[in-house]
């Protein structure tokens, strides 16, 4: 506990006491021990402030292992140390009517029902708080929020933990009051929807101090011996205080541990209780819970009949289809003789087609031949020979013509050349009186006198004829 925050007794020793020490001893009636003084203060204070209401702000909140809650209650000018003892006897005694105990939080404005207690060994006084309520927000509401947050954190509301509501429960457990409209509504509606549904009622008180324990017990018993498939936990509408048992932590935990799925239907549609959050399914009203718990038998019967009908027709259709297939297959399963006939016909057909094709080919070849023949005729060697021959004839005629002409021209030229030759011929020279003398011995033309010697035989050619002579004398120049 912090010193600064603590309200303490301080022994104030009067100043004069020191000065009057000697002469005023008889002013003091008695001398007390510290213990005696604190004891008297304790008696005085605890008697004077037996039970009171104090309002203030919670600060320096501490929760030691002891489970007690220590805090300082303060306002803007002053403060007082306070404690809430978390003893089961203290709390039961302090809250006989099951007022919810909410947990104070730092900074919260509260109104405490408390008495003043003095702790003599330390000379300290403090408020022993027996109950407290948050200021402004109702205690019930706050307790509700706190429990809700706590259970939510713990996972009691988790969707994963929700059990499935069976589609067609054979036996339905109802935990509610045996009197009143709720049970009648549920019985009427389940009876109307599914006349043969079995119902097991666990009658409980649904409001007041005993209600939570009875509800918890009923849920547990339904699980233990009820043999039910689903359970409806229901209560009609009421004030928030009336619905309090359904905000009870024990009830919440009983719902959570129930193996049987629980449908909650507490109060009106707008009322949400802790039980609703924990339940596997929340119905807005008890009547709605009855509707959620059982299907309408008539619809089920109709659906079943429809399914059965469809199945029958499907089966018929299917067998018919298979029969048709069978017939089709059987038809295709033919006599081999027929197959032979078919093959024969096929062969005939093929043969016929082959003949036709052959004839067509022959015809085509014939045409090809004719075409080739005509082409060949055009390129026949006889024709070419004829052609070449006539060409040859023409060439020959030309040649002959040309040769004649050339001959003619040659004759003319010959004449000309003969004339020219004549003019140049030694014979012509001879005719002009010259002669050619040759040595008889060797036929050489004698150009110099020295070529011969006297007595040599010489052949002399003249223009007309020749004669032989003998040299008589040589006259060299």
């Amino acid at each position, binding site marked *: 506990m912090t010193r600064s925050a603590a309200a303490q007794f301080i022994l104030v020793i009067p100043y004069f006491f020191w000065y009057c020490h000697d002469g005023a001893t008889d002013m003091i009636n008695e001398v007390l021990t510290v213990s005696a003084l604190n004891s008297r203060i304790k008696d005085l204070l605890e008697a004077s402030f037996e039970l009171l209401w104090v309002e203030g702000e919670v600060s320096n909140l501490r929760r030691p292992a002891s489970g007690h809650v220590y805090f300082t209650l303060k306002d803007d000018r002053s403060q007082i140390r306070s404690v809430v003892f978390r003893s089961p006897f203290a709390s039961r005694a302090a809250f006989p009517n099951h007022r919810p105990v909410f947990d104070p939080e730092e900074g919260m404005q509260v109104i405490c029902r408390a008495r003043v207690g003095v702790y003599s060994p330390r000379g300290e006084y403090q408020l022993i708080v027996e109950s407290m309520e948050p200021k402004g927000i109702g205690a019930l509401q706050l307790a509700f929020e706190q429990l809700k947050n706590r259970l939510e954190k713990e996972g009691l509301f988790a969707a994963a933990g929700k059990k499935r509501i069976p589609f067609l429960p054979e036996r339905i457990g109802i935990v509610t009051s045996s009197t009143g409209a709720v049970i009648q509504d549920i019985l009427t509606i389940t009876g109307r929807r599914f006349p043969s549904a*079995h119902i097991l*009622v666990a009658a409980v008180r649904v409001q007041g101090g005993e209600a939570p324990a009875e509800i918890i017990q009923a849920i547990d018993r339904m699980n233990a011996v009820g043999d039910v498939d689903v359970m409806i936990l229901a209560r009609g509408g009421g004030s928030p205080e009336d619905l309090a048992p359904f905000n009870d932590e024990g009830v919440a935990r009983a719902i959570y541990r129930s193996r049987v799925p629980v449908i909650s239907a507490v109060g009106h549609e707008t009322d949400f209780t802790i039980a609703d959050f924990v339940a596997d399914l929340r119905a807005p009203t008890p009547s709605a819970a009855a509707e959620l718990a059982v299907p309408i038998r008539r619809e089920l019967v109709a659906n079943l009949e429809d*399914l059965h009908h469809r199945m029958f027709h*499907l089966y018929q259709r299917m067998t018919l289809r298979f029969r048709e297939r069978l017939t089709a297959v059987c038809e295709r399963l033919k006599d081999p003789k027929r197959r032979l006939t078919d093959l024969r016909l096929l062969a005939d057909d093929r043969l016929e087609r082959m003949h036709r094709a052959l004839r067509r080919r022959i015809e085509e070849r014939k045409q090809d031949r004719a075409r080739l023949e005509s082409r060949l005729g055009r390129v026949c060697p006889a024709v070419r020979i004829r052609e070449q021959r006539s060409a040859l004839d023409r060439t020959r005629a030309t040649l002959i013509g040309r040769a004649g002409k050339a001959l003619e021209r040659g004759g003319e030229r010959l004449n000309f050349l003969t004339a020219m030759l004549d003019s140049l011929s030694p014979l012509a020279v001879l005719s002009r009186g010259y002669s050619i003398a040759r040595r008889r011995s060797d036929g050489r033309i004698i150009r110099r006198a020295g070529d011969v010697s006297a007595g040599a035989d010489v052949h002399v050619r003249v223009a007309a004829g020749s004669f032989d002579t003998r040299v008589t004398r040589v006259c060299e120049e």
Partner: protein
Amino acid sequence: MAKENFEAALGKLEELVRRMEAGDLTLEESLKAFEEGTRLARFCSRKLDEAERRVEILLKQGEDLVVKPLAGEDREDG
């Protein structure tokens, strides 16, 4: 197998009809489906027809918990 449950049986019947509707079953399969479907349909319809309405109350007698017919409950006719 645990006691047969209406919903599971109805679900199976629906599945069988769906498969038959899909039309890809062999003749044996479809015959089997038909037989099983007929059985399921009979089971479901028996469940629906089963038993009279019974309303009971869970009571504690001494140390024992007992189930007794709820007094004053009128039989209702669907």
